[in-house]
């Protein structure tokens, strides 16, 4: 084997090695940091049980929002048309958080309550996160609920 060829071989070998390490790292990191989105129905069915942390999507149920005066602890119920799940969150809620609007909360289940450490709301009056809209459309179809406004018409 002449020196040029050997150098090329070493070079290609290193490249393959680097690519393999990078691919492994990416796969590992992805596995750990992927958050699944579930609706209250999924959670109550036990689908979310496999994951310690996940995202919960749905509508904030009418009349469910409660917060003691002067307290940062907010309680509300997330509803997907089929099932309801109580949520507790301590902190400042996003500007567009309101009842009867879509939210996505990240956190984990504790004693039948979803403890959220982050709450995201839709960002204008017509927009619903596409993933929540898809999930809720399923629930609505099953119960023949009149359709929601289409996602993202703005």
């Amino acid at each position, binding site marked *: 084997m002449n020196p040029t060829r050997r*150098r090329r071989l070493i070079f290609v070998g290193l*490249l393959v090695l*680097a690519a393999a390490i*990078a691919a492994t*790292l*990416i796969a590992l*990191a*992805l596995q*750990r*940091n*992927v*958050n*699944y*989105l579930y609706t209250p129905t999924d959670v109550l069915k036990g689908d979310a049980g496999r994951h310690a942390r996940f*995202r919960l*999507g749905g509508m904030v149920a009418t009349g469910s929002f409660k*917060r003691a*005066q*002067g*307290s*940062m602890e907010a309680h509300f119920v997330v509803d997907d048309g089929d099932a309801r799940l109580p949520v507790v969150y301590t*902190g*400042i*809620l996003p*500007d*567009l958080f309101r009842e009867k609007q879509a939210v996505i909360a990240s956190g984990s289940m504790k004693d039948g309550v979803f403890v959220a450490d982050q709450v995201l709301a839709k*960002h*204008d*009056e017509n927009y619903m*996160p*596409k*993933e929540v809209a*898809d*999930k809720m459309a399923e629930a609505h179809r099953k119960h023949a609920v009149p359709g929601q406004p289409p*996602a*993202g*018409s*703005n």
Partner: protein
Amino acid sequence: MPGELGHYALLLALVVACLQTVLPLLGAQRGHRDWMAIARPAAYAQLALVGFAFAVLTWAFVVQDRSFSYVAENSNSLLPLVYRYTAVWGAHEGSLLLWLFVLALWTAAVATFSRRLPQPVIARVLGVLGAVSIGFLALLVFTSSPFDRLLPAVQEGRDLNPLLQDPGMVIHPPVLYCGYVGFAVPFAFAVAALLDGHVDARWLRWTRPWTNVAWGFLTLGIALGSIWAYYELGWGGWWFWDPVENASFMPWLAGAALLHSQAVTEKRGSFAAWTLLLAIAVFSLSLLGTFLVRSGAITSVHAFAADPTRGVFILAYLGVVIGGSLLLYALRAPGTTSNARPFTFASRETLLLANNLLLAAACAMVLIGTLYPMFADALNLGKISVGPPYFSLLFVLLMAPLVLLLPFGPLTRWQQEQPNRIVAMLLPWAALAVIAAAIAWWLAPQGKLRTTLGIFAAAWLFAGTLRFVWSRFKANGKRFTAEMLGMTLAHLGIAVFVSGAMLADALVEQREVALSPGQSLQLHGEQYRFDGVSDHDGANYRANTGTITVLRGGNIVTTLHPEKRHYASGGQVMTEAAIHGGVFRDRYVALGEPLGGGSWAVRVHSKPMVRFIWSGALLMALGAFIAATDRRFRRKEDSA
């Protein structure tokens, strides 16, 4: 009537763009000088037509001609004048028009500053730019015309998204687009070189300033977006690994790789095929970025509407541009010749190769993380999102070797180097960085690991880069060129950026509490006193304005007025954070929501070094612009 004129101008521009593409490309292939000569006038004609259409739309916003549905959807009579200008690119149609306008500007600039190039080259370059323009014109004319009428006109329009009613948003999109679109020039050059079958150092010397300027604009655009998110979203963060941020970050990473590989190819002839591939990749990522944001394919705070016909059109366009150029690359690259000179393992070429591999790997990592949720959804693997920890962890892992190797690059000779010479040069400075890091470990009250790593990286980059400057000045008779000055500034910019990014997150102090008027909280040895909330009226909103007095040892430092704005139309609510900034530390206050009985939720951050993040980006952009002015790039061409 002028509205229809705007539409006709776009149609006419489409015809001109077709001429600009077909005739010069064919002419260059067959050697017809007359056909090639069409390219320049066509580029100017297109600028005039697209500029006219842009002016018409702007005028419709300024005079509030609500018979245009686009104007009625995105503005109303209460909107302040400056935001009427920016409302032009506030949604899908107008932002496409802005993109096209910027492309027309770049194309005209290429036509103007290319007198020294051989005619077939410039004909091909302008032809390819024309082809890019055809796609955007067709998209605008056939699926998303901003000139569609709404008859009868409505009495009052809706509103520009309040998130976009901000001075930062006035300049962020145009600057970002200058970056995205600017990469069309190296792309056009790569395609031209593939058509010609030869990579010439002269052409590369001519393309490099364009790549530099485009990358500089992209850097500025991303930094402006980050500043905007910092004070407008009210969360106090400066980077969220949001899909839209990632969309602009991918071409930035690939663009940084392109800057370096172009330098190698121009000076040494090596990596020619790789440089061509990178040029294609950077522009493809720019297109992908534009459309990811604009197509609604990903869920994000910035994403606009999803419309299936547009989606298909956009996908087809991406397929033609990216697939076509990659096909051309596959067919022609193996036969493309260049004058590559050999190099050994210990050489600057190898270091720049490592730079390119790391930047490309980081770019691939971001791409995978951004697109994975889309693919998982399509394959029914569940609705997922990829969390910021994935990106931060892998990004730091990939950038650490880059930071370690960076100071070696400029000091190492091309072709062959004695590694001992460089190690001896840099050893004292590495020791200095280690000492600085040790002191940081000892002093840091929290986030010790991050602080230490940040200080080490910043000190190492700073000292290593200055070592290069010193060795240049010591060597008599060697000029310090604009290219070197630009590189030095950009590398110092990385040092500044790294110190800011690592320390701001490690040393931040933050609290979110409920405060009644008169109550206060302690943060970073200072007292933040909440003096209650009053109402006031803005142009198109009502605001709850809070008053927070910052005291240190009983003396007033400053008074901050964070706001909660309720916009008149649509009933949207926006948080306006109040920031008292210094070079080394920001005091950041945002109002949450009323909690009854006059008390409010209040978010207070004490953020050290946060301005270093954007100052670093500014230095990088400045470096790129200065390097572009190097005399070498403008030299009369005599030899290759």
